[in-house]
């Protein structure tokens, strides 16, 4: 599973992207965030406030209940501020 991080999520995690193999009990975006929070102090800091983080699965905005699978591209970022 390919993970991408943007804006302050990227800064806190300390990586722009990484490839991970989550355990089988990680079935959705919410589960993935909980699992990622255990990977490093940076991850823990980034995912400490899950309510402030948005996600995209395969480049579509995705709520926390969205399923994730091994070949997905999953991105985490703050609410967008373009325009």
């Amino acid at each position, binding site marked *: 599973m390919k993970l991408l991080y943007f804006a*302050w999520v990227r800064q806190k995690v300390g990586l722009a992207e990484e490839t991970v193999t989550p355990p089988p009990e990680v079935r959705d975006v919410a589960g993935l965030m909980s699992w990622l929070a255990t990977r490093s102090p940076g991850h823990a800091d980034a995912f400490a406030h899950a309510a402030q983080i948005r996600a995209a699965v395969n480049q579509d905005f995705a709520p926390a209940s969205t399923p994730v699978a091994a070949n997905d591209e999953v991105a985490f970022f703050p*609410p967008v*501020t373009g325009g």
Partner: protein
Amino acid sequence: MARVLVQREVFDLGAESALLSEGRTDVGGIASFVGICRADDGLAAMTLEHYPGMTERALAAIAAQAESRWPLTGCTVIHRHGRMLPGDPIVLVLTASRHRIAALESCAFLIDWLKTKAPFWKAEEFADGTTRWVDAKAEDDAATARWGA
């Protein structure tokens, strides 16, 4: 099909507008909006980060939404990324239609939707060397909601 570009370079409003009417005689009006970097609170520069791949998909989806809601003869969305100085243009939306109201409304719609549905993030740099990520604004969510998102 809308013309959608994500680029570092400055865009050319006059040339982009001309593209929407050249060689045709069914366009009655072209509306545009250019978003520009302001120097609020001592802002020295602003860097726009984006999600390559998803950005283009999201902008195309937003433009397709406008084309499905209004009878447009053309639509252009250009969003820059990278580092901007105060006064620099950031985003351009152009909509063309037979009638002015369709062009004006869809232009307002596009810029509202871009604010809340396109994967860009702004980091501000201030004259004193500090930097901060811009927070999403509740007023932008409200502006998007008025279109029955």
